[in-house]
């Protein structure tokens, strides 16, 4: 193969993968997949019939050096239950619990197997090219714990024959220092991206206590470091290999509630090592993936006052195989299998503890009408667990594109979540008789959009309904607590997203408003005389909303964000609550080019109007604070004559 024909072949391969991904996964989507490769087609299958929120180029750059908690809490319908900056931040999506929402990295669920959830304050946005929120269930494709939806983190390998380096430094209030860097090197068949991130924060912010006096948060510092490495090889015209490694370490002090005279000595260290390898075989009609993920999640809790030195570690291995094939223009077929093995070490796990094993078979298909205006897809999953029987699950979804301005989506699914390892094995209390949480969910969305000259308008409206049985809660049992399948919870509500934009030459302005209404109530309970029946779940606001004003002119951009969070009950009988709050932020960026170097200066003013509020009772958040930084990009094309 000579040089020119070789390059041509690779171009064809790349276009093949791209076009297959588009056809197989999102043929009706109005989104344009501009990148040449999507790491896992399963993600695209699961997004069919659902509302998907993707942070666009007006938003993502402003949050590039923040945590996932920051962007989700201000820019999405996900309510983040944050105990403060750097502290535990878990999610509530569409009225569900944190363990009912999956975090998917390269298609693998990275929720902590022992806790069943993730801490969003530990995940840096900088490590990912794309952050997407899939609203709605996909249990057949992703397995346990995707009842509310999933948050998908992914990177795109670009084969551009280039060298790109980025260096970032930032500083902010309360002793915050952060630095990050990335190196991307690629040829037309090999790509490597290395990302590094480090942040330390004294986090000794001042806040107003219950008496209205200013108090300083103490024993509250944290630091985090991490590295993410992505390799990608186009082995030949039919084979591709992706390998990724991600290490994250988060050390933090755990403060006492405000007003405590004595100092806390508690601290927590989280160490996560994640790796994935993905081999893809593709032709113009068929695609086969073999994937392997290895995950190590360690959590060390120390409280020298309490004499607690708890160490836990969980090793997980996930093996997956899947095959997609396109029989005709209108029929696609999908089949796959998964095998999962977990091994946890914890001094609180009793003699019953064993290493759970799970295996699953998955199948699905997709039907397109010849005019590609209507699409139907369905999938089914049967999982087997060494611990308990697992219900058969599945989903159906529909998409319709009856008019160029209108896009309709609907899906329904049978959903489930398996108990966590702590639910099973924690001593005392772990319950070996737990059943999976299970139920049904459905949601529908309407997307209406208009473009007229420089003006664009887009409206998305969604309604959802979920009914979950065997909801697990921990309850007192004499001298300890124990989990049980006790509740039936019904969640329903709606979301809107409205965007109005104007773009002319190098100027743009966009106003975007999101609203969320969630009614998530306990319908039945096995507790005697349970006052929670008919009441809203705790820390689940019924009403939330956010608005963005984005303005850009030439090399400068501005983002003004405002958030509203309604009443949150902090007791299950809804007898006490926290007051609603408004909080705003202003973010600015300015970029200047010097030949191959791009220099970006950014600044952010958070809690612009000095709002005094609590997300969780007794856990204060900072008053007005700032952050500023500098980013340097260097781009060099390795060989301009070759494919870019």
């Amino acid at each position, binding site marked *: 193969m000579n040089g020119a024909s070789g390059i041509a072949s690779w171009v064809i391969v790349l276009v093949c993968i791209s076009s297959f991904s588009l056809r197989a996964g999102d043929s009706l989507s109005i989104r344009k997949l501009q990148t040449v490769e999507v790491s896992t087609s399963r993600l695209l299958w699961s997004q069919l019939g659902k509302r998907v929120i993707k942070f666009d180029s007006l938003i993502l750059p402003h949050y590039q050096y923040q945590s996932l908690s920051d962007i989700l809490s201000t820019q999405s319908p996900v309510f983040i239950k944050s105990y403060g900056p750097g502290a535990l931040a878990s999610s509530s999506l569409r009225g569900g619990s944190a363990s009912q929402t999956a975090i998917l990295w390269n298609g693998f669920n990275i929720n902590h197997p022992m806790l069943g959830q993730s801490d969003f304050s530990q995940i840096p946005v900088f490590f990912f090219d794309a952050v997407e929120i899939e609203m709605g269930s996909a249990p057949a494709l992703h397995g346990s714990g995707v009842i509310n939806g999933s948050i998908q983190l992914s990177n795109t390998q670009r084969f551009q024959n280039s060298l790109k380096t980025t260096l970032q430094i930032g500083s902010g209030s309360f002793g915050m220092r952060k630095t990050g860097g990335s190196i991307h090197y690629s040829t037309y068949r090999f790509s490597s991206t290395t990302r590094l991130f480090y942040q330390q924060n004294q986090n000794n912010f001042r806040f107003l206590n*219950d008496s209205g006096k200013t108090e300083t948060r103490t024993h509250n510092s944290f630091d985090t470091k991490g590295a993410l490495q992505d390799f990608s090889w186009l082995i030949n015209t039919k084979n591709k290999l992706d390998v990724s490694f991600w290490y994250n370490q988060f050390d933090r002090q755990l403060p*006492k*509630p405000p*007003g*405590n*005279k*004595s100092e806390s000595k508690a601290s927590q260290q989280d160490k996560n090592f994640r790796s994935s390898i993905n081999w893809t075989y593709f032709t113009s009609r068929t695609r086969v993936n073999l994937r392997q993920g290895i995950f190590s999640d360690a959590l060390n809790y120390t*409280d020298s*006052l*309490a*004499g607690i030195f708890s160490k836990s570690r969980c090793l997980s291995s996930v093996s997956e195989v899947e095959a997609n094939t396109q029989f005709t223009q209108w029929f696609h077929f999908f089949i796959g299998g998964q095998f999962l093995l977990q091994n946890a070490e914890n001094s609180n796990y*009793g*003699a019953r503890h064993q290493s759970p094993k799970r295996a699953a078979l998955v199948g699905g298909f997709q039907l397109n009408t010849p005019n590609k205006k209507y699409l139907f897809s369905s999938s089914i999953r049967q999982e087997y667990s060494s611990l308990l029987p697992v219900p058969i699950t599945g989903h159906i979804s529909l998409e319709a594109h*009856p*008019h160029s*301005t*209108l896009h309709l989506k609907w899906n329904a699914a049978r959903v489930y979540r398996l108990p966590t390892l702590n639910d099973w094995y924690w*001593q*005392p209390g772990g319950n070996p008789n737990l059943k999976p949480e299970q139920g049904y969910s459905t949601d529908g969305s*309407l997307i*209406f959009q208009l473009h007229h000259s420089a003006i664009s308008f887009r409206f998305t*409206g969604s*309604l959802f309904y979920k009914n979950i049985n065997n909801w697990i*809660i*921990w*309850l*007192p*049992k*004499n*001298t*300890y*607590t124990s989990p049980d399948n006790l509740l039936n919870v019904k969640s329903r509500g*709606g979301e809107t997203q409205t965007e109005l934009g104007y773009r002319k030459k190098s100027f743009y302005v966009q106003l975007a408003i999101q609203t969320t*209404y969630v*009614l998530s109530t306990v319908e039945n309970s*096995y*507790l*005697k*005389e*349970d*006052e*929670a029946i008919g009441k809203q779940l*705790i820390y689940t606001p*019924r*009403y939330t909303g956010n608005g963005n004003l984005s303005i850009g002119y030439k090399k400068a951009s501005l983002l003004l964000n405002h958030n509203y969070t*309604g*009443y949150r*009950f*902090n*007791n*299950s*009988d*809804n*007898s006490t*609550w926290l007051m*609603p709050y408004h909080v705003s932020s202003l973010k600015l960026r300015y970029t200047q080019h010097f030949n191959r170097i791009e220099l970006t200066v950014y600044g952010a003013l958070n809690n612009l109007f000095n709002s005094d509020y609590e997300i*969780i*009772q*007794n*856990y204060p958040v900072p008053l007005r604070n700032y952050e500023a930084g500098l980013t340097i990009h260097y781009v060099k094309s390795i060989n301009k004559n070759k494919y870019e």
Partner: protein
Amino acid sequence: MIHYRLVKYSSVILGFILYACVKDKPNPVTKTNVVLSSNEKVFVINEGPFNTGNGSISLYDPISNNVVEDVFYEQNAQKLGNIVQSMSVVNGQYCIVVNNSNKIVFCNKDFKKTAQITGFHSPRYVLPVSNKKGYVTDLYANAISIIDFNSLSKTGSIPCKGKTEKIISLYNKAFVTNTDKEYVYIINTITDQITDSVNVGLNAYGLEVDKNDDIWILSNGKKSAGIPGKLTRFDALTHTVKTSFTFSSQDSPGHLHINTTKDSLYYINTHVYRLSINDGALPSSAFITNDGRNFYGMGIHPRNHSVYLADAMDYSQKSTIYVHDASGKLKTSFKTAICANSFWFE
């Protein structure tokens, strides 16, 4: 045309949705004036939610069935603190231990705060050994603190590794349980030294003294290790074990109490059990069955022997207190605050 129809149908759907939405602002809690009709008072100690809230003391009037949910806040316009663990009376003052706020709060008979002592690690119970001196057990201090009621300060400590819990005094000795150890420790209250210990089984928490001055200890055991709980009686003078009953390894007994005549013991093991101090074995049938309730605390009324049982529900809503008469029959119930764990009767 399609736009017109879309707007029309969307408006109708939107109208239905808005109509179905629930008002966000909760109805304000209407406060009713509570009239306490007698001098008979039952205080309920409510821990409150861990870390994220405040505990409280509820005041219940058994005659009128009225409840003041947070009597400390009513009288002081401030919250008591996080995890209210226990309450007792010392020199005519209410003495309230606030565990996670690491303090002991003193109130007068009107429940007005008069003082507080801080500087503890994780205080649990206070035992006055004289008008001047008291001991404070602690989860994490590896010591029992000595406090001075006159100067309202911590004056010393008695080293004792592990988590010390309930404590009583008799014959110038203090007997203290320790949930980390298999022993009850005995302190000379004159010299403030641990002088002896008695093996009573792992995870001992409750202790009472009967009419014969025998000490009864209830240990929970360790279910995960297959170590069963035990009920042990020993002589307060000689420290000789007289009786020891062993529970099944599946049991999880707790909350030991004794009546005023000090001849009947009560404990919770899913249900409530009662036994005479002269019984030769553990009771096989329950005195009060749980009937779907989760008992988190118990108290025996000193005059009428009513059994007060606290159901903490899901830890996250108001507790329900069930009052059973001396024969075990349910008399009434009332609501208090979150996580009711014990009672103080006057």
